């Protein structure tokens, strides 16, 4: 297991290099002269040159890349063009808001998804099963900004149960988390159902029944533990996707998270902020994937633990 973990850590190195190269190239993929664009349309030649100097754009590309990476390692992602503050501190606070949102949403997805999936699988072919699967299909195909707006419409404006916007108090969490977690819950429900159906016909489930194990334990102990293995992968991917996909939810509920911040930064051409945010999100994605792989190994005893 330790060897595997170390090897897996080594394997993330090329991924990290790839990510930094991509993020670094962002600056150079902008059509035209980045210095000109960042300095603004009204800037004169001298101001543009100054900007170029400030951004280090007149150095050779490898040197620029090296400066970017060595800065990033030390937590220095440059300064915001608009506010002039360090990118790292600008991102910091907002990043945790988004992580919190994604985390709660994932927990909600897992909770609802698993229960719905298991019920659906054990009641296969019944009305309950069909109903759950239809609801899941809705959850999956509903755009989440629309779901968010509907929730605000009924539960905030209509019943007045929850605040319309913001983030922090428990009441403020409910609607955004439901909005963001619904699609995930639907995916996990479908995945759990098919995985359970496969496992439930396995020989070892028959063995458990032949042993005299209660049906409830057959399902929740013997079957679920095996059925979870593929679900874990989905949950991990889901969490990563939520981090990036929180933009709309944050916008709808006016939450000051990273997603909305990036969108604003793009609109204002604050490239250091965009670079920094994309880098942080990508790193988060890599870390989550790493954790998923490790837990997958842990759950699945059949994989050689070399």
């Amino acid at each position, binding site marked *: 297991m330790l*060897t595997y973990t*170390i*090897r897996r850590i*080594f394997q993330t190195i090329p991924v990290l290099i790839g990510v930094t190269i991509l993020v670094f190239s962002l600056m150079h993929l902008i059509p035209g002269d980045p210095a000109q664009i960042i300095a603004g349309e009204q800037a004169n030649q001298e101001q543009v040159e100054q900007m170029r100097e400030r951004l280090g754009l007149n150095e050779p590309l490898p040197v620029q890349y090296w400066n970017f990476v060595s800065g990033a390692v030390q937590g220095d992602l440059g300064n915001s063009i608009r506010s002039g503050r360090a990118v790292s501190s600008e991102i910091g606070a907002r990043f945790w808001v988004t992580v919190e949102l994604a985390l709660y949403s994932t927990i909600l997805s897992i909770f609802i998804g698993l229960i719905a999936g298991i019920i659906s699988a054990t009641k296969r072919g019944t009305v309950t099963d069909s109903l759950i699967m239809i609801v899941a299909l809705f959850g999956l195909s509903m755009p989440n900004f629309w779901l968010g707006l509907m929730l605000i419409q009924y539960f905030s404006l209509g019943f007045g149960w929850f605040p319309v916007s913001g983030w922090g108090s428990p009441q403020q969490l409910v609607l955004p988390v439901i909005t963001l977690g619904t699609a995930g819950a639907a995916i996990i429900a479908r995945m759990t159902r098919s995985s359970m159906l496969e496992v439930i016909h396995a020989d070892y489930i028959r063995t458990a029944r032949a042993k005299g194990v209660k049906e409830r334990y057959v399902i929740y102990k013997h079957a679920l533990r095996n059925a979870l293995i593929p679900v874990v992968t989905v949950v991990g991917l889901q969490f990563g996707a939520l981090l990036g996909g929180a933009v709309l939810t944050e916008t709808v509920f006016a939450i000051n998270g990273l997603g909305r911040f990036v969108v604003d930064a793009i609109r204002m051409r604050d490239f250091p902020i965009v670079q920094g945010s994309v880098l942080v999100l990508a790193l988060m994605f890599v870390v989550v994937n790493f954790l998923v792989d490790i837990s997958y190994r842990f759950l699945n005893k059949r994989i050689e633990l*070399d």
Partner: protein
Amino acid sequence: MTTELLQVKNLKQYFPIKGGLLGRKINDVKAVDDISFSIKAGETLSIVGESGCGKSTTGRAILRLDEPTAGEIHFQGDDLLSLNKKEMRKKRKDLQIIFQDPYASINPRQTVRQVLNEAMEIQNVLPKEQRYDRMIELLETVGLGPDKLDRFPHEFSGGQRQRIGIARALAVDPKLIICDESVSALDVSIQAQVLNLLKKLQREFDLTYLFISHDLGVVRHISDRVVVMYLGKIVEIGDKKSLFDNPKHPYTKTLLSAIPVPDPKRKKDQIILKGDVPSPIDPPTGCRFHTRCPFATERCVTEVPELRNTTGMKNGHESACHYIEEIESGEMKPKY
């Protein structure tokens, strides 16, 4: 020597195991480790042994379905291992294989007609106009009606699918057919039908069989000569009668005694071996059977026994045991 259709010399097939931090090769699975034998034209040679002994690997190596690690395979004078891809493809016309699970080896989306046509097409055995007649003839040969020509594999039972597998092999007029556990998945009553068919075809078309099986009953029925393998090595080779009636290697003896006989009055003294077959990654030193052999001595641990013939053994019957004579004379007694 002229009658030898296939000669396998010092064949080795190692499969690398990767692992460690950098995924380098750390060891080998020694699936087949230096074996030699030959098959005469028109005979049936069987390879028997338990799972992991290397019998199927040998069959695959001969066809170069896996590239052998070392050795020579002479077929009608050519060393198959020195042929390039194109030459080898041509050779495959003479070398066909029938697998255990015909369902897995026939494309489920092809009809029997397409399966047979493709086989003939690849080797270009007949002009297009004559192929239809040939297909009908082939189906008849393997005992299927012409109405089956446009059916799909899933429409057939296990026994019928195996007949299609045989028809496909026959389509290119091969000289040698490797039957890899070809009747193992079939029910007894169907198995007998297919075995009879294989025998009939051998007579009619002068076929040579390399018959790979774990079932010693089937092997006794179909073979002329038998090779017994254990952990990648040949432990005994001989003509059928001599080997079954007068086995010399302790492994062959236990194998034969372990098979249940459908006759309750013949409750015999079974030799029950200790333990499992060891791993082919780090096979035991010396004689590979020594960890389970009831006769094993210090010599068996250190010295690899060669195949040899000795007094009281028919010509061509060889066993790889240091103590054939001592065990035969009763001088050595089993330790358990």
